[in-house]
């Protein structure tokens, strides 16, 4: 066999994009997501969020604010950010930690495919965590959303998972430069509990925090989820879902631009993997 015959023919550009997006994304998730084994996944991604839901439902009852549904919907949707924030931070900035960023950036692969591919498994993981939260809440707390609005509620959860993934992408990109990005990810995860109307009604927050909430993921998705769970369909929840999607797209775009910026500055200084 000649040497020329041994070289595989180049893939069509479109196929190459999808291959990097799907297979590359899956491989990076398996390699970089700490909590993927059942021993990690069950306690961290399923049990801890369940306890979080219970904790805040009881806190709400003690304080006499909101209903059980208020806290169930808020927390069930918010727990997707565990996957979105931590998962994406791991999926991007751990390349730097494991010193594998340089080889990846040396390949000619489409950066958008490399970047977005990492988000898909994280998005799915976030979505299933939310669904698990709703299921557990139905079993333990007797939470019953309006059946007619269930498809739209699932849409709200999916869009919110996507916007949290976009937000996580931005944090992960920052991790290409900042030394301890997990500290920022931790603060972000807990800050959204306070700012995005998860545990506290937005009207209770000071004006600057309310303004900040509008540009953070979760705020609009949770608002839509609460309306839908209460059986109110129509334009208002749909508008919230659209806003949530827009917020996610903005964060993902900012994340991609940051990623490319850090790539270019890393090439100039020759220091992709510097810790």
């Amino acid at each position, binding site marked *: 066999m000649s040497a020329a015959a041994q070289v595989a023919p180049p893939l069509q550009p479109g196929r190459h994009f999808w291959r990097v997006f799907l297979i590359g994304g899956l491989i990076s998730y398996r390699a970089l997501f700490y909590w993927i084994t059942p021993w990690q996944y069950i306690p961290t991604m399923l049990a801890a969020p369940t306890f*979080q839901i219970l904790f805040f439902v009881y806190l709400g009852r*003690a304080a006499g604010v909101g209903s059980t549904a208020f806290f169930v919907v808020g927390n069930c949707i918010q727990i997707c950010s565990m996957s979105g924030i931590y998962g994406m931070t791991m999926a991007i900035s751990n390349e730097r930690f494991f010193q594998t960023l340089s080889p990846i950036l040396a390949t000619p692969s489409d950066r958008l495919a490399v970047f977005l591919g990492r988000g898909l498994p994280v998005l799915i993981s976030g979505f299933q965590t939310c669904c698990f939260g709703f299921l557990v809440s139905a079993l333990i707390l007797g939470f019953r959303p309006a059946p007619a609005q269930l498809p739209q509620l699932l849409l709200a959860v999916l869009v919110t998972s996507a916007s949290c993934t976009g937000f996580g992408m931005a944090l992960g990109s920052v991790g290409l430069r900042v030394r301890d990005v997990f500290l920022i990810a931790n603060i972000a995860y807990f800050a959204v509990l306070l700012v995005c109307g998860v545990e506290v009604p937005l009207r209770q927050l000071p004006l600057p925090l309310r303004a900040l909430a509008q540009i953070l993921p979760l705020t609009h998705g949770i608002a839509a989820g609460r309306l839908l769970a209460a059986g109110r369909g129509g334009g208002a929840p749909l508008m919230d879902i659209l806003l949530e999607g827009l917020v996610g797209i903005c964060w993902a775009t900012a994340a991609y631009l940051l990623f490319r910026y850090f790539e270019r500055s890393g090439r100039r200084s020759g220091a992709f993997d510097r810790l």
Partner: protein
Amino acid sequence: MRGLGLHEALGWPRVVAWGWFYQLKMQAQSGFMLMTAVIQPLIFASIAMADQQAGNHGLPILYYALGAGIMGIWSTVVFGCGGALSWQRHQGTLEPLVMVPAPFVLVLMGITLGTATVGLYSMGATLLWAAVVFGAHVQMADPYLFTLGAVMTVVSLGLLGLVMGSSFVLYRNSNAISNMIEYPVWLVTGLLVPLSLLPGWSHPLAYALAPTWGVEALRSAAFGGQPLPAIGWCLLASLVYLAVGVWLVGVVERRARQTATLNFQ
């Protein structure tokens, strides 16, 4: 084999004290521990206090400030002590610590008590936050017993950390357990939610955990109740945790020596 000398026994408190001091210094430099001990409790305190203001005002702000403070101590214990041995193993310092003549349990005790002490930041932070941001009237009815209660709470949580640190070491995914047990202990020990609102089956669990008695002691001292019984229960819990911790560390140490798995990664 020679017996234990008086000189060596007198050195035991020194081992614990220096271990405590160095752990305190190291943890005070750690961004993660400061996040856990200061920022996270402030966020939870803010949530609870904002809910209180939006709700029925059934409980005073100070009630939540004290609870959130102990939540911070518990978080530092869970993450700092739960992973203490794993961290030493990761750093490559576990073997030297086991080899030194001082009993290993004393070395570990210094580490866990030092970690729990860092959690005191959270108490100071949440009390200050309650006063400055939420306008709470932070005045302790009995400041001396409040201080004694705070010290006993830290000691008992540090010794509970000794039990966790020595038992988690047998489990490779100890950080997953740490992630999982933070919320349930906050809930069942009544730090922000009164025990009377929780189901009855959870009460025996609450009574076995030191944060229940710690927060009870601090609230009694702050609001003018009788903190001494709760402080006494904290002391009793500390002694039980100490006995269990000493036994567990011995078991783990022997097992690791026999199977040569002290440094497995």
